[in-house]
Protein backbone atom coordinates (compact mmCIF):
# COMPACT_ATOMS: atom_id res chain seq x y z
CA UNK A 1 0.00 0.00 0.00
CA UNK A 2 1.16 3.51 -0.73
CA UNK A 3 0.37 4.41 2.90
CA UNK A 4 2.97 1.88 4.09
CA UNK A 5 5.55 3.30 1.71
CA UNK A 6 4.87 6.77 3.11
CA UNK A 7 5.10 5.52 6.69
CA UNK A 8 8.46 3.94 5.95
CA UNK A 9 9.63 7.14 4.33
CA UNK A 10 8.52 9.04 7.45
CA UNK A 11 10.77 6.88 9.62
CA UNK A 12 13.91 7.71 7.63
CA UNK A 13 17.07 8.74 9.46
CA UNK A 14 17.35 12.47 9.88
CA UNK A 15 20.46 14.38 8.93
CA UNK A 16 22.41 15.47 12.03
CA UNK A 17 21.50 18.83 13.52
CA UNK A 18 23.40 21.33 15.58
CA UNK A 19 20.18 22.53 17.17
CA UNK A 20 20.46 22.01 20.95
CA UNK A 21 17.92 22.80 23.66
CA UNK A 22 20.20 25.41 25.27
CA UNK A 23 20.69 27.14 21.91
CA UNK A 24 16.94 27.25 21.39
CA UNK A 25 16.59 29.05 24.74
CA UNK A 26 19.43 31.48 23.97
CA UNK A 27 17.85 32.37 20.63
CA UNK A 28 14.35 32.79 22.13
CA UNK A 29 15.82 35.07 24.80
CA UNK A 30 17.80 37.02 22.21
CA UNK A 31 14.65 37.70 20.19
CA UNK A 32 12.84 38.67 23.38
CA UNK A 33 15.51 41.23 24.35
CA UNK A 34 15.81 42.49 20.79
CA UNK A 35 12.09 43.06 20.72
CA UNK A 36 12.36 45.01 23.97
CA UNK A 37 14.76 47.44 22.26
CA UNK A 38 12.55 47.70 19.18
CA UNK A 39 9.47 48.45 21.29
CA UNK A 40 11.48 51.12 23.08
CA UNK A 41 12.28 52.74 19.74
CA UNK A 42 8.78 52.38 18.33
CA UNK A 43 7.33 55.56 19.83
CA UNK A 44 9.85 57.66 17.89
CA UNK A 45 9.18 55.75 14.69
CA UNK A 46 5.45 56.39 15.00
CA UNK A 47 6.03 60.15 15.18
CA UNK A 48 8.27 60.06 12.12
CA UNK A 49 5.69 58.10 10.20
CA UNK A 50 3.14 60.89 10.48
CA UNK A 51 5.54 63.13 8.57
CA UNK A 52 6.42 60.53 5.97
CA UNK A 53 4.57 60.24 2.69
CA UNK A 54 3.99 56.51 3.06
CA UNK A 55 3.30 55.53 6.62
CA UNK A 56 3.48 51.81 7.33
CA UNK A 57 0.01 50.43 7.86
CA UNK A 58 -0.08 47.83 10.59
CA UNK A 59 -2.95 45.42 10.78
CA UNK A 60 -2.91 45.64 14.58
CA UNK A 61 -1.96 48.91 16.21
CA UNK A 62 -0.08 48.54 19.47
CA UNK A 63 -0.87 51.30 21.94
CA UNK A 64 2.18 53.01 23.42
CA UNK A 65 3.20 51.69 26.83
CA UNK A 66 3.42 54.39 29.48
CA UNK A 67 4.30 54.17 33.15
CA UNK A 68 1.38 53.81 35.52
CA UNK A 69 0.53 56.95 37.51
CA UNK A 70 2.40 57.80 40.70
CA UNK A 71 -0.49 56.49 42.80
CA UNK A 72 0.34 52.98 41.59
CA UNK A 73 2.85 51.44 44.01
CA UNK A 74 4.45 48.03 44.32
CA UNK A 75 5.12 46.21 47.58
CA UNK A 76 6.89 42.94 48.20
CA UNK A 77 4.70 40.51 50.12
CA UNK A 78 6.19 38.93 53.26
CA UNK A 79 7.84 35.54 52.86
CA UNK A 80 6.48 32.93 55.30
CA UNK A 81 8.95 31.93 58.04
CA UNK A 82 10.99 28.86 57.26
CA UNK A 83 10.26 28.99 53.57
CA UNK A 84 13.19 28.13 51.29
CA UNK A 85 13.41 29.01 47.63
CA UNK A 86 11.19 31.58 46.02
CA UNK A 87 7.52 32.38 46.55
CA UNK A 88 5.06 33.34 43.83
CA UNK A 89 1.72 35.11 44.24
CA UNK A 90 -1.02 33.13 42.45
CA UNK A 91 -4.11 35.26 42.87
CA UNK A 92 -6.10 37.92 44.70
CA UNK A 93 -9.79 37.82 45.56
CA UNK A 94 -12.11 40.35 43.86
CA UNK A 95 -12.31 42.51 47.02
CA UNK A 96 -8.51 42.61 47.49
CA UNK A 97 -8.60 41.16 50.99
CA UNK A 98 -7.02 37.77 50.31
CA UNK A 99 -3.86 37.03 48.34
CA UNK A 100 -2.79 33.44 47.67
CA UNK A 101 0.62 32.14 46.72
CA UNK A 102 2.84 29.13 46.31
CA UNK A 103 6.08 28.17 48.08
CA UNK A 104 7.97 24.97 48.80
CA UNK A 105 9.15 22.48 46.22
CA UNK A 106 7.48 21.06 43.17
CA UNK A 107 7.13 17.70 44.93
CA UNK A 108 5.81 19.25 48.16
CA UNK A 109 4.13 22.58 47.46
CA UNK A 110 2.99 24.93 50.22
CA UNK A 111 -0.08 27.15 49.94
CA UNK A 112 0.49 30.66 51.26
CA UNK A 113 -2.28 33.06 52.31
CA UNK A 114 -1.74 36.77 52.92
CA UNK A 115 -4.55 38.57 54.66
CA UNK A 116 -4.76 41.70 56.80
CA UNK A 117 -0.99 42.19 56.80
CA UNK A 118 -0.13 38.67 57.97
CA UNK A 119 1.21 35.71 56.07
CA UNK A 120 0.73 32.04 56.84
CA UNK A 121 1.18 28.66 55.24
CA UNK A 122 -2.11 26.77 54.89
CA UNK A 123 -2.27 23.13 55.99
CA UNK A 124 -2.45 20.22 53.59
CA UNK A 125 0.33 20.77 51.03
CA UNK A 126 -1.60 22.03 48.02
CA UNK A 127 -1.14 24.48 45.17
CA UNK A 128 -3.78 27.25 45.31
CA UNK A 129 -5.13 28.58 42.01
CA UNK A 130 -7.90 31.03 42.94
CA UNK A 131 -9.63 32.60 45.95
CA UNK A 132 -13.04 34.27 46.29
CA UNK A 133 -14.09 37.20 48.48
CA UNK A 134 -15.24 34.80 51.22
CA UNK A 135 -11.73 33.35 51.43
CA UNK A 136 -12.59 30.05 49.75
CA UNK A 137 -9.38 28.79 48.09
CA UNK A 138 -9.33 26.22 45.26
CA UNK A 139 -6.40 24.38 43.73
CA UNK A 140 -4.89 20.93 43.70
CA UNK A 141 -2.77 18.49 45.65
CA UNK A 142 0.05 16.55 44.04
CA UNK A 143 3.10 17.87 42.17
CA UNK A 144 3.07 21.68 42.23
CA UNK A 145 3.46 22.03 38.53
CA UNK A 146 0.97 20.54 36.14
CA UNK A 147 3.49 18.78 33.98
CA UNK A 148 2.71 19.57 30.37
CA UNK A 149 -1.02 19.25 30.77
CA UNK A 150 -0.82 15.96 32.60
CA UNK A 151 -3.40 16.68 35.29
CA UNK A 152 -3.83 13.05 36.23
CA UNK A 153 -1.22 13.38 38.95
CA UNK A 154 -3.24 16.15 40.61
CA UNK A 155 -6.41 16.06 42.68
CA UNK A 156 -8.78 19.06 42.83
CA UNK A 157 -9.30 20.50 46.31
CA UNK A 158 -11.00 23.36 48.10
CA UNK A 159 -9.78 24.98 51.32
CA UNK A 160 -12.78 26.30 53.26
CA UNK A 161 -10.89 28.40 55.79
CA UNK A 162 -10.24 25.57 58.22
CA UNK A 163 -9.59 22.40 56.28
CA UNK A 164 -8.71 21.00 52.89
CA UNK A 165 -11.59 19.14 51.21
CA UNK A 166 -11.08 16.96 48.10
CA UNK A 167 -13.47 17.66 45.24
CA UNK A 168 -15.01 14.54 43.70
CA UNK A 169 -13.85 13.38 40.28
CA UNK A 170 -16.55 12.59 37.69
CA UNK A 171 -16.90 8.99 36.50
CA UNK A 172 -13.80 7.98 34.58
CA UNK A 173 -11.75 10.87 35.99
CA UNK A 174 -8.17 10.05 37.01
CA UNK A 175 -7.11 13.44 38.31
CA UNK A 176 -7.72 17.10 37.90
CA UNK A 177 -7.23 20.69 38.94
CA UNK A 178 -9.64 23.35 40.22
CA UNK A 179 -8.73 26.63 38.49
CA UNK A 180 -11.50 29.10 39.37
CA UNK A 181 -14.05 29.84 42.09
CA UNK A 182 -16.86 32.41 41.96
CA UNK A 183 -18.73 34.39 44.64
CA UNK A 184 -21.27 31.59 45.11
CA UNK A 185 -18.51 29.07 45.79
CA UNK A 186 -19.02 27.21 42.52
CA UNK A 187 -15.76 25.87 41.12
CA UNK A 188 -14.47 25.27 37.60
CA UNK A 189 -11.58 23.08 36.56
CA UNK A 190 -10.15 20.45 34.29
CA UNK A 191 -10.21 16.68 34.72
CA UNK A 192 -8.14 14.09 32.89
CA UNK A 193 -9.95 10.85 32.14
CA UNK A 194 -8.79 7.26 31.89
CA UNK A 195 -8.73 7.37 28.08
CA UNK A 196 -6.28 10.30 28.19
CA UNK A 197 -8.85 12.91 27.18
CA UNK A 198 -9.52 15.99 29.26
CA UNK A 199 -12.81 17.62 30.20
CA UNK A 200 -13.88 20.94 31.65
CA UNK A 201 -15.73 20.28 34.91
CA UNK A 202 -17.98 22.31 37.22
CA UNK A 203 -18.38 21.59 40.92
CA UNK A 204 -21.40 23.20 42.57
CA UNK A 205 -21.65 24.15 46.21
CA UNK A 206 -24.42 21.56 46.42
CA UNK A 207 -21.64 18.98 46.20
CA UNK A 208 -22.36 17.79 42.67
CA UNK A 209 -19.81 17.49 39.93
CA UNK A 210 -20.74 17.79 36.27
CA UNK A 211 -18.74 17.54 33.10
CA UNK A 212 -19.18 20.82 31.25
CA UNK A 213 -17.43 19.99 28.02
CA UNK A 214 -15.48 17.16 26.47
CA UNK A 215 -14.29 18.85 23.29
CA UNK A 216 -10.77 17.72 22.44
CA UNK A 217 -8.25 19.00 24.95
CA UNK A 218 -10.88 20.96 26.87
CA UNK A 219 -9.55 23.00 29.77
CA UNK A 220 -11.92 24.92 32.05
CA UNK A 221 -10.17 28.01 33.44
CA UNK A 222 -12.45 30.95 34.18
CA UNK A 223 -15.83 31.36 35.93
CA UNK A 224 -17.81 34.53 36.60
CA UNK A 225 -20.39 35.11 39.32
CA UNK A 226 -23.26 34.42 36.88
CA UNK A 227 -21.87 30.93 36.35
CA UNK A 228 -20.57 31.53 32.81
CA UNK A 229 -17.40 29.48 32.32
CA UNK A 230 -14.61 29.92 29.79
CA UNK A 231 -11.61 27.91 28.67
CA UNK A 232 -10.28 26.40 25.47
CA UNK A 233 -9.86 23.30 23.35
CA UNK A 234 -6.81 21.97 21.52
CA UNK A 235 -4.59 21.21 19.65
CA UNK A 236 -5.01 24.46 17.77
CA UNK A 237 -6.13 26.55 20.74
CA UNK A 238 -9.70 27.79 20.39
CA UNK A 239 -11.57 29.71 23.07
CA UNK A 240 -14.83 28.32 24.42
CA UNK A 241 -17.67 29.59 26.56
CA UNK A 242 -20.00 27.42 28.63
CA UNK A 243 -23.24 28.96 29.85
CA UNK A 244 -24.50 28.27 33.37
CA UNK A 245 -27.03 25.80 31.94
CA UNK A 246 -24.39 23.90 29.99
CA UNK A 247 -24.49 25.25 26.44
CA UNK A 248 -21.08 25.33 24.72
CA UNK A 249 -20.33 28.09 22.23
CA UNK A 250 -17.11 29.11 20.50
CA UNK A 251 -15.79 32.52 21.48
CA UNK A 252 -14.92 34.37 18.26
CA UNK A 253 -11.35 34.98 17.11
CA UNK A 254 -10.89 38.73 16.69
CA UNK A 255 -10.04 40.15 13.29
CA UNK A 256 -6.27 40.25 12.92
CA UNK A 257 -5.57 37.16 15.03
CA UNK A 258 -5.02 33.53 14.02
CA UNK A 259 -6.37 31.91 17.16
CA UNK A 260 -7.23 32.73 20.76
CA UNK A 261 -7.46 31.09 24.17
CA UNK A 262 -9.71 32.19 27.03
CA UNK A 263 -7.91 32.09 30.39
CA UNK A 264 -10.06 34.01 32.87
CA UNK A 265 -13.46 35.63 33.41
CA UNK A 266 -14.90 38.28 35.74
CA UNK A 267 -18.14 40.25 35.53
CA UNK A 268 -19.15 40.61 31.89
CA UNK A 269 -15.62 40.00 30.67
CA UNK A 270 -13.41 37.12 29.57
CA UNK A 271 -9.80 37.50 28.58
CA UNK A 272 -7.10 35.40 26.97
CA UNK A 273 -4.12 35.34 24.65
CA UNK A 274 -4.30 35.87 20.90
CA UNK A 275 -1.92 34.32 18.42
CA UNK A 276 -1.09 36.79 15.67
CA UNK A 277 -0.35 35.67 12.12
CA UNK A 278 3.36 35.50 11.27
CA UNK A 279 4.70 38.70 9.76
CA UNK A 280 7.90 37.29 8.32
CA UNK A 281 9.93 39.15 10.93
CA UNK A 282 11.24 36.62 13.43
CA UNK A 283 11.34 39.20 16.23
CA UNK A 284 7.58 39.54 15.91
CA UNK A 285 7.26 35.98 17.18
CA UNK A 286 7.65 37.43 20.66
CA UNK A 287 4.77 39.91 20.27
CA UNK A 288 1.98 39.39 22.77
CA UNK A 289 -1.65 40.23 22.24
CA UNK A 290 -4.72 39.86 24.42
CA UNK A 291 -8.33 39.18 23.48
CA UNK A 292 -11.17 40.58 25.54
CA UNK A 293 -14.69 39.28 25.09
CA UNK A 294 -17.85 40.83 26.46
CA UNK A 295 -19.75 37.74 27.64
CA UNK A 296 -23.05 39.61 27.65
CA UNK A 297 -22.93 41.29 24.23
CA UNK A 298 -20.57 38.90 22.41
CA UNK A 299 -18.27 41.77 21.37
CA UNK A 300 -14.59 40.86 20.93
CA UNK A 301 -11.51 43.03 20.70
CA UNK A 302 -7.84 42.43 20.03
CA UNK A 303 -5.38 44.23 22.28
CA UNK A 304 -1.84 44.26 20.92
CA UNK A 305 1.21 44.66 23.18
CA UNK A 306 0.07 42.79 26.30
CA UNK A 307 -0.86 39.18 27.03
CA UNK A 308 -4.29 38.60 28.56
CA UNK A 309 -3.84 36.67 31.79
CA UNK A 310 -6.56 38.16 34.02
CA UNK A 311 -9.46 40.58 33.71
CA UNK A 312 -11.29 42.62 36.33
CA UNK A 313 -15.08 42.90 36.55
CA UNK A 314 -14.53 46.52 35.46
CA UNK A 315 -12.85 45.33 32.25
CA UNK A 316 -9.18 46.08 33.00
CA UNK A 317 -6.84 43.48 31.48
CA UNK A 318 -3.79 42.31 33.45
CA UNK A 319 -0.80 40.52 31.95
CA UNK A 320 2.74 40.99 30.80
CA UNK A 321 4.05 42.91 27.81
CA UNK A 322 5.91 41.35 24.90
CA UNK A 323 9.06 41.62 27.02
CA UNK A 324 7.55 39.98 30.13
CA UNK A 325 7.18 43.26 32.03
CA UNK A 326 4.07 43.49 34.28
CA UNK A 327 1.36 45.73 32.86
CA UNK A 328 -2.34 46.49 32.65
CA UNK A 329 -4.57 47.70 29.82
CA UNK A 330 -7.44 50.06 30.44
CA UNK A 331 -9.53 52.11 28.00
CA UNK A 332 -7.16 51.60 25.08
CA UNK A 333 -3.93 52.32 26.93
CA UNK A 334 -1.22 50.03 28.32
CA UNK A 335 0.39 51.01 31.62
CA UNK A 336 3.66 49.45 32.80
CA UNK A 337 3.49 48.50 36.47
CA UNK A 338 6.39 49.58 38.71
CA UNK A 339 9.07 47.04 39.66
CA UNK A 340 10.42 46.62 43.20
CA UNK A 341 14.06 47.69 43.80
CA UNK A 342 16.37 45.43 41.78
CA UNK A 343 13.46 43.95 39.83
CA UNK A 344 14.30 42.76 36.32
CA UNK A 345 11.93 43.69 33.51
CA UNK A 346 12.15 40.33 31.69
CA UNK A 347 10.91 37.83 34.21
CA UNK A 348 7.63 38.92 35.73
CA UNK A 349 4.21 37.38 35.92
CA UNK A 350 0.85 38.92 36.77
CA UNK A 351 -1.57 36.44 38.29
CA UNK A 352 -4.46 38.36 39.81
CA UNK A 353 -6.55 41.54 39.71
CA UNK A 354 -9.35 42.84 41.93
CA UNK A 355 -12.89 43.53 40.70
CA UNK A 356 -12.22 47.28 40.48
CA UNK A 357 -9.03 46.68 38.47
CA UNK A 358 -6.86 48.81 40.75
CA UNK A 359 -4.98 46.12 42.75
CA UNK A 360 -2.95 43.33 41.17
CA UNK A 361 -0.60 40.58 42.29
CA UNK A 362 2.26 38.79 40.61
CA UNK A 363 5.87 37.78 40.88
CA UNK A 364 9.08 39.49 39.91
CA UNK A 365 12.70 38.34 39.80
CA UNK A 366 14.96 40.72 41.70
CA UNK A 367 18.28 40.12 39.95
CA UNK A 368 19.25 39.33 36.39
CA UNK A 369 19.33 35.60 35.79
CA UNK A 370 22.02 33.75 33.91
CA UNK A 371 20.86 31.10 31.49
CA UNK A 372 20.00 28.13 33.61
CA UNK A 373 20.66 24.68 32.27
CA UNK A 374 20.37 22.90 35.59
CA UNK A 375 17.41 23.25 37.92
CA UNK A 376 17.56 25.16 41.18
CA UNK A 377 18.73 23.00 44.09
CA UNK A 378 15.90 21.13 45.82
CA UNK A 379 13.54 21.89 42.92
CA UNK A 380 11.67 24.81 44.57
CA UNK A 381 8.52 26.10 42.87
CA UNK A 382 10.43 29.32 42.15
CA UNK A 383 14.07 30.37 42.32
CA UNK A 384 15.05 32.24 45.48
CA UNK A 385 15.32 35.41 43.40
CA UNK A 386 11.56 35.34 42.81
CA UNK A 387 9.49 37.54 45.11
CA UNK A 388 5.70 37.89 45.37
CA UNK A 389 4.42 41.43 44.91
CA UNK A 390 1.20 43.38 45.15
CA UNK A 391 0.42 46.54 43.19
CA UNK A 392 -2.14 48.93 44.63
CA UNK A 393 -3.69 52.16 43.41
CA UNK A 394 -3.04 51.31 39.76
Amino acid at each position, binding site marked *: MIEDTLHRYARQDLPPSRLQAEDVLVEARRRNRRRARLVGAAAGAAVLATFGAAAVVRTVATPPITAAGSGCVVDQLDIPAGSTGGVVANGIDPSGRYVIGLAGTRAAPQAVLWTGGTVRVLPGAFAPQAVNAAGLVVGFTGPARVQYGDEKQQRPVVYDGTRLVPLPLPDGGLGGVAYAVNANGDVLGTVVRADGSSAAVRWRTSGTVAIVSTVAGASGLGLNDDGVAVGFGMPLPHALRWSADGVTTALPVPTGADSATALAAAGDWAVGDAELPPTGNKDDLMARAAVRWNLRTGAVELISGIGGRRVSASGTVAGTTSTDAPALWRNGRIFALPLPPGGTPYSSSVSGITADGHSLVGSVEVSAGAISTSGPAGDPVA*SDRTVPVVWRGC
Partner: protein
Amino acid sequence: MRTEQEHEYVEYVRSRLPSLRRTAHLVLGDGHRADDAVQDALTVLYRRWGRLTEVASMDAYVHTMVVRACLAYQRRSWSRVLLRGDPPDSVVESGSGRVDDRLVIREALGRLPVRQRMAVILRYLCDLPVSDVAQVLGCSEGTVKSRTHHGLRALRAVLGERASASVPATIAAHLRGQA
Protein backbone atom coordinates in the same frame (compact mmCIF):
# COMPACT_ATOMS: atom_id res chain seq x y z
CA MET B 1 10.37 34.20 32.03
CA ARG B 2 11.45 33.22 35.51
CA THR B 3 14.61 31.17 36.02
CA GLU B 4 12.89 27.94 37.04
CA GLN B 5 10.48 28.29 34.13
CA GLU B 6 13.43 28.61 31.76
CA HIS B 7 14.82 25.44 33.25
CA GLU B 8 11.52 23.63 32.65
CA TYR B 9 11.45 25.01 29.13
CA VAL B 10 14.94 23.69 28.36
CA GLU B 11 14.03 20.30 29.87
CA TYR B 12 10.96 20.11 27.70
CA VAL B 13 12.73 21.26 24.54
CA ARG B 14 15.52 18.74 25.07
CA SER B 15 13.09 15.87 25.42
CA ARG B 16 10.97 16.82 22.40
CA LEU B 17 13.55 18.20 19.97
CA PRO B 18 14.10 14.96 18.00
CA SER B 19 10.41 14.41 17.28
CA LEU B 20 9.82 18.09 16.47
CA ARG B 21 12.75 18.11 14.04
CA ARG B 22 11.37 14.99 12.41
CA THR B 23 7.99 16.64 11.90
CA ALA B 24 9.56 19.79 10.46
CA HIS B 25 11.86 17.77 8.24
CA LEU B 26 8.96 15.79 6.83
CA VAL B 27 6.98 18.94 6.08
CA LEU B 28 9.86 20.95 4.60
CA GLY B 29 12.09 18.18 3.26
CA ASP B 30 15.24 20.03 4.24
CA GLY B 31 17.24 19.86 7.47
CA HIS B 32 18.35 23.49 7.68
CA ARG B 33 14.95 24.97 7.01
CA ALA B 34 13.46 22.42 9.41
CA ASP B 35 15.77 23.64 12.17
CA ASP B 36 14.75 27.25 11.48
CA ALA B 37 11.06 26.40 11.63
CA VAL B 38 11.53 24.44 14.88
CA GLN B 39 13.36 27.43 16.39
CA ASP B 40 10.50 29.73 15.32
CA ALA B 41 7.89 27.47 16.90
CA LEU B 42 9.89 27.06 20.10
CA THR B 43 10.35 30.83 20.31
CA VAL B 44 6.58 31.19 20.33
CA LEU B 45 6.43 28.44 22.94
CA TYR B 46 8.93 30.42 25.06
CA ARG B 47 6.57 33.39 24.96
CA ARG B 48 3.57 31.27 25.87
CA TRP B 49 5.31 29.15 28.48
CA GLY B 50 3.08 29.43 31.53
CA ARG B 51 -0.64 29.05 31.74
CA LEU B 52 -1.16 27.49 28.35
CA THR B 53 1.64 24.98 28.79
CA GLU B 54 0.46 24.13 32.27
CA VAL B 55 -3.05 23.18 31.36
CA ALA B 56 -3.21 22.01 27.80
CA SER B 57 -2.22 18.94 25.83
CA MET B 58 1.28 20.23 25.33
CA ASP B 59 2.70 17.78 22.84
CA ALA B 60 -0.16 18.02 20.36
CA TYR B 61 -0.06 21.79 20.69
CA VAL B 62 3.69 22.07 20.14
CA HIS B 63 3.60 19.76 17.13
CA THR B 64 0.82 21.89 15.69
CA MET B 65 2.95 24.99 16.23
CA VAL B 66 5.90 23.38 14.44
CA VAL B 67 3.73 22.45 11.47
CA ARG B 68 2.33 25.96 11.32
CA ALA B 69 5.82 27.45 11.55
CA CYS B 70 6.79 25.21 8.64
CA LEU B 71 3.80 26.39 6.61
CA ALA B 72 4.64 30.03 7.39
CA TYR B 73 8.26 29.35 6.50
CA GLN B 74 7.20 27.74 3.26
CA ARG B 75 4.94 30.68 2.34
CA ARG B 76 7.71 33.17 3.12
CA SER B 77 10.31 31.39 1.07
CA TRP B 78 7.97 30.62 -1.80
CA SER B 79 9.41 33.25 -4.14
CA ARG B 80 12.93 32.11 -3.34
CA VAL B 81 11.98 28.49 -4.00
CA LEU B 82 10.53 29.46 -7.35
CA LEU B 83 13.70 31.32 -8.25
CA ARG B 84 16.12 28.60 -7.35
CA GLY B 85 13.98 25.60 -8.23
CA ASP B 86 13.20 22.76 -5.88
CA PRO B 87 14.53 22.95 -2.35
CA PRO B 88 17.63 20.82 -1.92
CA ASP B 89 17.09 17.39 -0.53
CA SER B 90 19.16 16.27 2.41
CA VAL B 91 22.44 14.61 1.65
CA VAL B 92 22.15 10.85 1.76
CA GLU B 93 24.78 8.18 1.41
CA SER B 94 24.86 6.68 -2.00
CA GLY B 95 25.04 2.96 -2.30
CA SER B 96 22.28 2.26 0.20
CA GLY B 97 19.11 0.94 -1.40
CA ARG B 98 17.00 3.48 0.51
CA VAL B 99 18.52 6.51 -1.17
CA ASP B 100 16.53 6.14 -4.34
CA ASP B 101 13.35 5.41 -2.41
CA ARG B 102 13.60 8.66 -0.55
CA LEU B 103 14.39 10.78 -3.55
CA VAL B 104 11.64 9.20 -5.58
CA ILE B 105 9.04 9.75 -2.87
CA ARG B 106 10.20 13.28 -2.12
CA GLU B 107 10.05 14.09 -5.80
CA ALA B 108 6.62 12.51 -6.14
CA LEU B 109 5.37 14.54 -3.17
CA GLY B 110 6.88 17.64 -4.73
CA ARG B 111 4.77 17.13 -7.84
CA LEU B 112 1.50 17.28 -5.88
CA PRO B 113 -0.40 20.58 -5.66
CA VAL B 114 0.66 22.22 -2.42
CA ARG B 115 -2.63 21.72 -0.57
CA GLN B 116 -2.78 18.05 -1.42
CA ARG B 117 0.86 17.68 -0.50
CA MET B 118 0.37 19.25 2.93
CA ALA B 119 -2.70 17.10 3.65
CA VAL B 120 -0.81 13.92 2.68
CA ILE B 121 2.31 14.89 4.66
CA LEU B 122 0.40 15.75 7.82
CA ARG B 123 -1.95 12.79 7.62
CA TYR B 124 0.40 10.01 6.48
CA LEU B 125 3.93 11.18 7.30
CA CYS B 126 3.24 13.04 10.56
CA ASP B 127 0.42 10.63 11.46
CA LEU B 128 -1.97 13.35 12.63
CA PRO B 129 -5.66 12.46 12.95
CA VAL B 130 -7.93 13.95 10.26
CA SER B 131 -9.43 16.38 12.79
CA ASP B 132 -5.99 17.78 13.70
CA VAL B 133 -4.99 18.11 10.03
CA ALA B 134 -8.21 20.06 9.43
CA GLN B 135 -7.43 22.43 12.31
CA VAL B 136 -3.82 22.95 11.29
CA LEU B 137 -4.70 23.65 7.66
CA GLY B 138 -7.82 25.65 8.54
CA CYS B 139 -10.24 23.58 6.46
CA SER B 140 -13.00 21.05 7.07
CA GLU B 141 -12.39 17.35 7.76
CA GLY B 142 -14.18 16.53 4.51
CA THR B 143 -11.72 18.72 2.61
CA VAL B 144 -8.80 16.94 4.31
CA LYS B 145 -10.20 13.55 3.30
CA SER B 146 -10.73 14.64 -0.29
CA ARG B 147 -7.24 16.18 -0.53
CA THR B 148 -5.54 13.10 0.90
CA HIS B 149 -7.63 10.86 -1.37
CA HIS B 150 -6.63 12.79 -4.49
CA GLY B 151 -3.07 13.18 -3.23
CA LEU B 152 -2.62 9.46 -2.68
CA ARG B 153 -4.15 8.69 -6.06
CA ALA B 154 -1.74 11.09 -7.74
CA LEU B 155 1.19 9.58 -5.82
CA ARG B 156 0.19 6.11 -6.96
CA ALA B 157 0.04 7.35 -10.52
CA VAL B 158 3.45 9.06 -10.32
CA LEU B 159 5.14 6.18 -8.56
CA GLY B 160 3.36 3.74 -10.86
CA GLU B 161 4.81 5.48 -13.93
CA ARG B 162 8.24 5.02 -12.49
CA ALA B 163 7.51 1.43 -11.52
CA SER B 164 7.51 0.57 -15.18
CA ALA B 165 10.90 2.25 -15.55
CA SER B 166 13.38 2.26 -12.68
CA VAL B 167 11.46 2.38 -9.44
CA PRO B 168 13.14 0.66 -6.52
CA ALA B 169 12.04 -2.88 -5.98
CA THR B 170 10.37 -2.13 -2.63
CA ILE B 171 8.01 0.47 -4.04
CA ALA B 172 7.31 -1.51 -7.16
CA ALA B 173 6.39 -4.47 -4.95
CA HIS B 174 3.97 -2.34 -2.97
CA LEU B 175 2.40 -1.02 -6.09
CA ARG B 176 2.06 -4.50 -7.49
CA GLY B 177 0.60 -5.71 -4.21
CA GLN B 178 -2.07 -3.12 -4.51
CA ALA B 179 -2.96 -3.84 -8.09
